């Protein structure tokens, strides 16, 4: 010993600082190193009779055998969950709050066991599991214990969804479990959860805790296994919702296979998040930010800041600082308390990283790695910096999911935004500047669900987390995250039969009728694109008849090129989106005013088309004006929140428009159905491409004249008439459309959901069910605005 002290005294080097694995290993041993499935509150050997091994990636040693659940196992779990729903709902919010509170307490009491087990199974540093993962898990259950308590008062219009199938990844095993389970339970749902095949152990320990606190049987079921197990959950008819975190490719499969089933889904997928550094940033702090962005959890983080965008003026200085810092990073066994980087989860992931890095070198980017080398046993990859990267490089586009940072430079603020948004993903962004004007100018312009200012990779239960674009949809955390686990009670009231209209008592006299033998002037209904009336690209028109088959006139027959033009127009006219809520309200009121001036004409049109009683038609127009007032009222009131997160910062939860929305209007209310769908969408700042009622389009084509007299910026509302199903499919497949609402058939709904998977459009479809648009709850309200927006959380730490 003595020589050792003397040597260390001279070298001042670090030594090993191992966290003991003995308690965790004892726990595994107590289970004979073999784990069954947790179904209906009890442990069941898998009906598949198959097991697979879980390995410590830092040592390549096997830890335990894990059950492979097959379809029958999953069925058993889903049935248990289904059976448990009623009781779980009926015990009420307070009882559920007590259970969630008990879970939080148990996790804290066994925090170190969870931490060590997680590090063993995943290979991530014990510092991270001990100081980040597990405390956040406990926090998540505490926070949602609160929501369980408050649900009955705060969500009166909502009810639970039922059985939730949850599939989680291996990068934050227990934390992702918490993100999924806590809100679902709080809102009264029951759960079948599948942990990732590489990292099942903490989920199984969690199951034990559920049993310990006497959580009612069936409320939480844990089934382990591979992709097939997940597929069995996704495809099980009694699963009411799927919540998934993982790769975008698998997310797409889930979107497609649930299309048309009515299952709700929330997807938290991949990312290639920008880390933007402006020249006035605190560069030494930036360097630590980079460490937290890309060398946290070996870079296996969906929101890792993997694209470093640096203002050109400081790039060289910053790269030098980063390289110096990389030399000081320490890599090694997950249970060493003095390491920064642990092991990569599995050989297959390591191989992917190696191949992508190789590709980066081959494509001409400059690779830099520290001079020290990685341990030989275990799956390790050194921290890596690529410079001389261009946006067209593969490594700049593809999610590497490893400790690899690619750096690019920008000249101006607007170029920074362009580079940041030059990706299919949109999970998170981090931006660094000491200028608050700049920070708050940039944050809303970045397409990402989370924007961290002068910080990165910080999380809290009170803040929503989730993606834009192909990073998925839905939020986890915050009040916004709860809507993923409830549904409006009125959804159950909706029927497939349309609400009957009051028939006309006599044949309707219309203005287009001949008068005194002189023909009325022919009226041409055009389409409306970019603020201009527009003829159809194909040069065809189609006849329109009344409900009783009386010919009324013709409308343009729009085709895919008209859709293309309309989307283009919507995309290039951002003016509407930049207006304040007050300005949008002014224009919506003005529309209402101008519509009122033409109330008789619009009533007349409805009478012609539907052959309804004028009183009935008049009610539709009046209700449309009323609705315009509703959304004009909301325009400056549907605002965000400042979340109470646990760090010293302001966390702004801002509802933002998607951008371009496609809206396929219901057939049955020519004007009110049109107004009720497009107006909430534009209220939130979206620009829309609308396919009005195919059968009765004249209310919509008459409406553009109202728009033209109401100061509505061109390109905000674009109207394409024609065949609904054909046009809606073109829109569903259009990659520059961010969201789509569809009110039509069950079959059409399925197609829309299926086709939207490619660019992960946000969809809202009616599955063939009809709304009573006259009804204030069914036809309007905050839920429409929620579906027309997504919440961005902006974290702004402060302190001078």
């Amino acid at each position, binding site marked *: *010993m*003595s*020589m*050792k*002290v*003397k*040597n*260390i*005294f*001279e*070298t*001042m*080097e*670090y*030594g*090993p*600082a191992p966290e003991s694995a003995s308690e965790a290993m004892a726990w595994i041993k107590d289970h004979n190193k073999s784990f069954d499935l947790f179904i209906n509150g009890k442990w069941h050997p898998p009906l598949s009779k198959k097991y697979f091994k879980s390995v410590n990636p830092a040592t390549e040693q096997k830890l335990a055998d894990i059950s492979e659940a097959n379809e029958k196992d999953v069925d058993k779990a889903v049935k248990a969950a289904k059976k448990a729903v009623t009781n779980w709902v009926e015990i009420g919010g307070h009882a559920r709050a007590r259970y969630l509170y008990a879970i939080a307490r148990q996790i804290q009491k066994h925090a170190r066991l969870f931490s060590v087990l997680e590090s063993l199974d995943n290979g991530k540093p014990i*510092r991270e599991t001990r*100081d980040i993962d597990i405390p956040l898990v406990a926090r998540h259950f505490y926070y949602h214990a609160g929501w369980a308590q408050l649900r009955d008062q705060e969500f009166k219009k909502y009810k639970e969804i039922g059985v939730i199938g949850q599939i989680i990844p291996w990068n934050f095993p227990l934390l992702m479990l918490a993100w999924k389970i806590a809100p679902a339970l709080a809102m009264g749902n029951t759960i079948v959860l599948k942990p990732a095949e590489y990292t099942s152990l903490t989920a199984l320990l969690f199951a034990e805790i559920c049993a310990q606190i006497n959580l009612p049987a069936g409320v939480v079921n844990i089934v382990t296994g591979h992709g097939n197990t997940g597929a069995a959950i996704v495809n099980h008819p009694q699963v009411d919702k799927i919540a998934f975190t993982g790769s975008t490719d698998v997310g797409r499969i889930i979107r497609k296979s649930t299309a048309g089933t009515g299952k709700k889904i929330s997807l938290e997928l991949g990312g290639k998040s920008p880390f933007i550094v402006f020249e*006035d*940033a*605190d560069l*030494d*702090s930036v360097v*630590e*930010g980079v460490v937290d962005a890309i060398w946290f959890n070996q870079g296996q983080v969906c929101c890792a800041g993997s694209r470093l965008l640096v203002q050109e003026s400081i790039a060289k200085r910053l790269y030098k600082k980063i390289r110096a810092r990389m*030399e*000081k990073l*320490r*890599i*090694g*066994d997950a249970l*060493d*308390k*003095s*390491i*920064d980087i642990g092991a990569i989860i599995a050989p297959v992931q390591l191989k992917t990283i190696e191949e992508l890095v190789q590709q980066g070198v081959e494509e001409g980017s400059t690779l830099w790695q520290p001079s*020290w*080398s*990685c*341990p030989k*046993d275990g799956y390790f990859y050194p921290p890596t910096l690529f410079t001389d990267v261009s946006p067209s490089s593969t490594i700049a586009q593809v999610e590497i999911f490893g400790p690899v940072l690619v750096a690019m430079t920008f000249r101006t603020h607007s170029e920074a935004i362009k580079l940041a948004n030059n990706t299919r993903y949109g999970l998170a962004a981090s931006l660094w500047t*000491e200028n608050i004007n700049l920070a708050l100018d940039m944050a809303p312009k970045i397409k990402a669900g989370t924007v961290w200012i*002068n*910080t990165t990779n910080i999380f809290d239960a009170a803040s929503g987390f989730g993606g834009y674009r192909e990073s998925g949809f839905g939020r986890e955390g915050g009040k916004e995250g709860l809507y993923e686990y409830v549904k409006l009670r009125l959804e159950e009231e909706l029927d497939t039969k349309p609400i009957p209209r009051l028939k006309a008592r006599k044949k309707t006299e219309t203005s287009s009728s001949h008068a005194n033998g002189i023909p009325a002037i022919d009226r041409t209904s055009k389409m409306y694109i970019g603020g201009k009336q527009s003829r159809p690209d194909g040069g065809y028109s189609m006849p329109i008849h009344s409900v009783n088959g009386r010919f009324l006139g013709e409308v343009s027959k729009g085709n895919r090129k008209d859709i293309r033009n309309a989307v283009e127009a919507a995309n290039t006219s951002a003016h509407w989106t930049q207006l304040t809520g007050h300005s949008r309200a002014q224009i919506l009121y003005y529309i209402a005013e101008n519509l009122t001036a033409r109330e008789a004409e619009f009533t007349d049109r409805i009478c012609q088309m539907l052959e309804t009683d004028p009183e009935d038609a008049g009610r539709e127009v009046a209700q449309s004006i009323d609705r315009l007032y509703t959304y004009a009222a909301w325009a400056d009131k549907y605002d965000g929140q400042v979340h109470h997160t646990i760090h*010293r*910062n302001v966390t702004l939860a801002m509802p933002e428009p998607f951008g371009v929305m496609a809206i396929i209007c219901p057939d049955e209310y020519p004007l009110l159905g049109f107004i009720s769908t497009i107006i909430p969408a534009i209220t939130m700042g979206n620009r829309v491409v609308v396919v009005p009622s195919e059968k009765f389009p004249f209310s919509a084509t008459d409406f553009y004249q109202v728009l033209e007299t109401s100061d509505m910026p061109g390109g905000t509302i674009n109207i394409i008439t024609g065949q609904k199903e054909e046009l809606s499919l073109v829109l569903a497949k259009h990659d520059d459309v961010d969201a789509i609402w569809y009110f039509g058939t069950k079959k059409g709904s399925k197609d829309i959901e299926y086709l939207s998977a490619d660019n992960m459009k946000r969809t809202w479809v009616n599955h063939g069910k009809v709304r009573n648009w006259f009804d204030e709850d069914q036809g309007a309200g905050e839920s429409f605005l929620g579906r027309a927006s997504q919440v961005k959380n902006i974290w702004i*730490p*402060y*302190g*001078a």
Partner: protein
Amino acid sequence: MAISQDKTTRDKKRVSESDSHMRNPGMPFDIDMFQDININRSAVERRVATLGKRRSVKKEWQAAWLLRAITCIDLTTLAGDDTEGNVIRLCAKAKQPVRTDLLKALGMEEANIQVGAVCVYHNLIKTAKQALQDTKIPIAAVSTGFPAGQISLDQKIRQIKKSVAAGATEIDIVINRAHVLLSDWKSLYHEVAKYREACGDAHMKTILATGELSTLTNVAKASYVCMMAGADFIKTSTGKESVNATLAVSLVMVRMIREYFENTGFKVGFKPAGGIRHAKQALEWLILIKEELGDEWLHTSLFRFGASSLLGDIERQLEHHVTGRYSASYRHPMG
């Protein structure tokens, strides 16, 4: 198996060279060197909050590191009731800070473990000099109207000169906080440059009194200006402010030392002072220095703790390391 980044052979060489690095001569005042500095407090606090969690020093490593910490202590007494008696006692402790049986058990009896310096008020320099005459332990004197610095510049210069003449080899000066708060960087520079001149061969530690500088950005700029003016060390606090050495201000200051070194090639030392009482804290500071500045700065020539009670806690930890039993303070000779 963690990979060690320490290059042992090179470091051994540094140990012998470390005492002889070239003194920072300072440089002409140049506002461009520091005016754009921006420190993000939240980010700095996050870094220091995780520093001690990212690195853990245990067992033999802990014992060795704590012994190194002792060699970096400016064993200090700065009290109104200081007398010859307690200063002589302090000097005796400085010469022999750890019980010899413990040193022997640690294999360090030959290592000549002594503290970095003894730090006193001017009036006690003479006493300390006598008490330490058979050693190489430097005598540091606080100066320039310590702690508040609210006396005239002439008096300050005279104080420095008198202390140097009395035998102080290190002078801990306090800066005029008003210059910082009024962003009068040029005046700060000139004043500190004058102190440096007055110090002559004695090494100058510049106390920023960071607890009174309001912002971390001020701390950073003041650090840079003092180094430009020729500080051999920059030091956090007098120990008399309401907030003294914190890891956050230390991080900001050592980053400035690194910046200054990269810009000029001169190494400036760092001395956190006030409030460092526990061995665990000492380890955190050593980790901070090792991570941000490198092993070269982990020597008494470039790093000091300004502390009076830290040594006692370190002694207890060392005995615990040797015996496996938790120690009591009365088992260690007082200073």
